[in-house]
């Protein structure tokens, strides 16, 4: 297998020392939620890794093909999770419920999305269950719905799946179609407090060799280490570019935040909003950045220059740190960074599922022109 561009080496195991880098790297791949729960989640994971020992991080190819595996993630809002932190047993409870149903014992955990808090809770779950973590995931970033995965595109069913809320209440979903599963879950997630621990896509390692995106956990650790160094923003972008392919498309100040700026599709969380950024150098363009739970498109003087499934994020130039979408303010000086997503998302099936049209922007993707 050919190593992905910018490959800087996988991590053999995850220790407590790796937690800050994992957190920062996970934020790069989904800069949606700020740091209101950072210290608590980091302390939780670091404590587990100190008590239970490091979690082995394995390439999918190195695991026996018949090893039962299951993915976990946080379903719902990171803000809700910060305000109603886990009791600590939710993820294991979700996994155990599927084990009882399928009469299996999972031999490895993998993140549904190696990004945001979801990347960390996969390590938490592996540490609690004392099983390895796979260096692979289903999104390579975060998308809004649970069937927006490489596994779904490869024909792997997300069900049976279990969501356990911070209230201790749980929901088991068994449906033939992935999109139905998400719709069934959303109402339940709101009822149990705005977030839930999800265990889904039970399968085996052999299937994941063809269906999951490889190397995405060690990638966030590598990106996180760069971010923690806090070099000069221009140096940081150059270094990030070397291992992620990201590039800066503009630097400017946020001048306006708008809400309900596009027609809303209520099946996707968070209403559409927009950001206006005035470029301070170069062409002094006016940028319009379209948001949902993630950035979905960037226009410069009216022309589309980046769009989903590209990963778009903002770097707070003054702080040398990622700007999270729940804490943006007019006046902030930001670099607009665009990173190509994993190749599967630019396929016709991938574009149909998570491309611009799925956000109500029926324009040709800039990478296809």
């Amino acid at each position, binding site marked *: 297998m050919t190593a992905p561009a910018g490959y800087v080496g996988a991590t053999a195991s995850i220790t407590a020392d790796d937690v800050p880098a994992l957190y920062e790297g996970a934020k790069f791949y989904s800069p*949606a*939620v700020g*740091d*209101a*729960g*950072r*210290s*608590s989640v980091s*302390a*939780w994971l*670091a*404590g587990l890794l100190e008590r239970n020992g490091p979690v082995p991080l394995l390439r999918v190819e190195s695991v026996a093909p018949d090893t039962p595996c299951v993915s976990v993630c946080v379903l719902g*809002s990171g*803000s*809700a999770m*910060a*305000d*109603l*932190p*886990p*009791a*600590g*047993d939710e993820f294991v409870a979700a996994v155990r419920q599927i084990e009882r149903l399928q009469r299996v014992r999972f031999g490895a955990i993998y993140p549904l999305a190696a990004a945001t808090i979801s990347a960390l809770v996969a390590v938490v779950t592996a540490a609690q269950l004392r099983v390895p973590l796979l260096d692979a995931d289903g999104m390579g970033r975060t998308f*809004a719905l649970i069937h927006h995965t490489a596994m779904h595109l490869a024909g792997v069913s997300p069900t049976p799946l279990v969501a356990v809320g*911070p*209230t*201790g209440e749980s929901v088991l979903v068994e449906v033939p179609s992935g999109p139905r599963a998400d719709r069934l879950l959303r109402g339940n997630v*709101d009822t*149990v*407090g*705005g977030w839930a621990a999800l265990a889904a896509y039970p399968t085996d390692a052999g299937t994941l060799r063809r269906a999951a995106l490889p190397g995405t956990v060690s990638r966030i650790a590598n990106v996180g280490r760069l971010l923690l160094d*806090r*070099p*000069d*923003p*221009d*140096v940081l972008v150059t270094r990030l570019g070397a291992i992620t392919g990201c590039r800066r498309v503009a*630097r400017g100040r946020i001048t306006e*935040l708008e*809400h*309900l700026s596009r027609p809303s599709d209520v099946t*996707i*969380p*968070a*209403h*559409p909003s927009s950001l206006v950024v005035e470029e*301070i150098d170069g062409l002094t363009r006016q940028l319009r950045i379209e948001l949902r*739970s*993630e950035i979905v498109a960037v226009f410069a003087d009216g022309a589309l220059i980046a769009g989903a499934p590209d990963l778009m994020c903002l770097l707070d130039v*003054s*702080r*040398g*740190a990622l700007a999270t*979408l*729940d*804490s*943006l*303010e007019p*006046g902030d*000086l930001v670099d607009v960074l665009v990173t190509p997503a994993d190749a599967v998302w630019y396929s016709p099936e991938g574009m149909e599922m998570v491309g611009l049209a799925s956000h109500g922007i029926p324009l040709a993707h800039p990478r296809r022109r």
Partner: protein
Amino acid sequence: MPAHAEDVAHIGVTLRPGRAYAAVVHGDTVVPVEPVAPARADADGVIAAAVATATRVAGGADAVTVDIAPLLLDTLLRPDGGIPPVAVVRIVPRAATDPELARSPAEAVERAIARRFTVAGGHDLLGNELCPLDRSALASLCAELPGTGIRHVAVVAAGSQARPAHEREVADAILAAVPGARVSVASDYGGQGLVAREATVVLDCALTPLTERVLDRCERTLARLPGDVVLRVARGDGGYSTPSRIRVTPVVAFGATDALELCGAAHLAVLADCRVLLPREGRRLAGEVRHRLAVVRPAEPVGLGTELVVPTAVLTPEPEERPGGLPPRAADVPAIRPDADRYLLACVGAAISRPASWLDEVAFIESAAELDRVRRDAEERATAMVMANGAAPGTTHIAEISTVAVPYSPSGTIRVRVRVAGAPDVRLAGG
């Protein structure tokens, strides 16, 4: 007749564990106050020397703004700091099953906590009840608490920013069980994150006795001095509040020094907008000033180990020099490296500070009209708060407002943050 603000001097004081520092600001003139032996360099001596200097320079001062943050931090971080034991009541649907989730990630915060209780209850971010309040557990708590001797209680409930009913019921029950207890409730501060909200109210309780002692002493000192100089207290966001407000919300004064230093540096450089590179232990920390106000966020104050929901200045390590070959960093505001002593910067920042308020909460909207209503409501409440903090009628303005959609939440969920500043109400001073 009330004095005009520009006719009189303003005094800024920063109180450090070892000694106090002060500066007198009169228009563009800044006079550092150096008590001459045998005058004392403690709070009393320095405030007296500053008032005398103001009389000499400008015929008098209208107010003394004190930065008590260094004393608060020192007390909190010293194991023998003499802070009172605090009990914490968490109101959540279920108690934590992991020891790390049951405690604060900050050692300094955890050290202040003598006893923890969990009572089942709480709401979600939009105020929907997740679990009825466990009144049986509350009764047990109220039976046990008086025997512990603890008189400072911090109460935090999930979702209390949206619906404080459970928090208030618990606080009322504790006050009935322990008359005279100092109870701090998280819904008074808004903000996001149970752990950050809990740390905020724990500090609020823990810092109360010291805050009262320090402010009593400052007020006694000013009462002995000629003139009618009022006392103000610097806030973490670089604004100020009245002593009576800080006595009930002492955590608001926590971490003020960084914001004051930023504003002091900008004032000395005669800049309204700039990036300030403050010297710290052999390196530079960068912060920003916009429209003469320090850029602040609810964040983790340096050295604390957890986030708080009261905003403080955002300081980040300035990277080393840029590698050769890179063009100068694109920027639209000047960067300054203040030469002045950091104590002087803090004193100047305190002297020129303005009354301020901050509000951070979650709301739900379904239309543009509803968004306007939510924003107006938040602005009005923040304006009322800044008036209570000492702003003159008619001088308040919205310094910052941002409303952002909360990612991965139900469509229509927004986070609203408002910062309001005003001009000092000089009628409060005799001049």
